[in-house]
């Protein structure tokens, strides 16, 4: 009885996880610009890994009877939960810093120029696009850029 339940649950989890990662890959292929692709890939990466790892943990405890395997799967899950969002964040930040302009829903770039993207990456306010903080954010970004240029001359 318990065997049957464990198999059913891990089958379902594995299936959901596979649907997650395959849909993530399809999103990676079909999405229109870098940031939407990043969104598709990073969310499904983390979600799929969580769900497939749960299935593997069930399998290792109830079918293989190996606690060590379960602990290792949990470690993999733990590291992935930390590293995957960090890598996505760093990727998005670096892309913006290098002047990749996000595209809006109407297919047009939402910033005027790559330079503005760099300034946005250097600035702090989160609601930059709402308008009220835009000038302040740009000024702050320029100030940071200038400071950075001064200090970075040595390398």
């Amino acid at each position, binding site marked *: 009885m318990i065997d049957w339940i464990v198999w059913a649950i891990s089958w379902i989890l594995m299936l959901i996880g596979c649907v997650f990662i395959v849909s993530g890959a399809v999103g990676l292929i079909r999405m229109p610009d870098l940031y939407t692709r990043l969104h598709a890939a990073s969310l499904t990466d983390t979600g799929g890994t969580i769900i497939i790892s749960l299935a593997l943990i069930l399998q290792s405890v109830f079918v293989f009877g190996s606690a060590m395997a379960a602990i290792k799967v949990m470690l993999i899950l733990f590291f992935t939960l930390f590293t995957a969002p960090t*890598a996505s964040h760093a990727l998005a930040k670096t892309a913006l810093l290098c002047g990749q302009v996000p595209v809006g829903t109407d297919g047009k770039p939402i910033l005027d120029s790559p330079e503005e993207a760099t300034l946005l990456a250097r600035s702090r306010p989160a609601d930059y696009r709402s308008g009220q903080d835009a000038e302040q954010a740009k000024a702050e970004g320029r100030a940071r850029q200038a400071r950075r240029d001064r200090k970075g001359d040595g390398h």
Partner: protein
Amino acid sequence: MFIAATIAILVTMALTLARALLGPTLFDRLLAVNSFGTKTVLLISVYGFMTDRPDFLDIALVYSLINFLGTIAVLKFFEFDDPGSETYQEDDF
């Protein structure tokens, strides 16, 4: 179950690799490679269970760490042209 999961992961890896080859910008490629690495970790784990050898999990564990470090190192290289640069400043983040 494991065979089905392996096939799904392999299909995902193929699609991801297609994005890595097509990707118009460097960042698309890097995103695809990072995603490919995560899928590799899953593939190694599932394959280990499929062949009744959960020891493969050690390899998957190491691979997940290396994947993260590799991505961050390449990103830092893009940003500063030099992974060893010390131009990070406190107020950058």
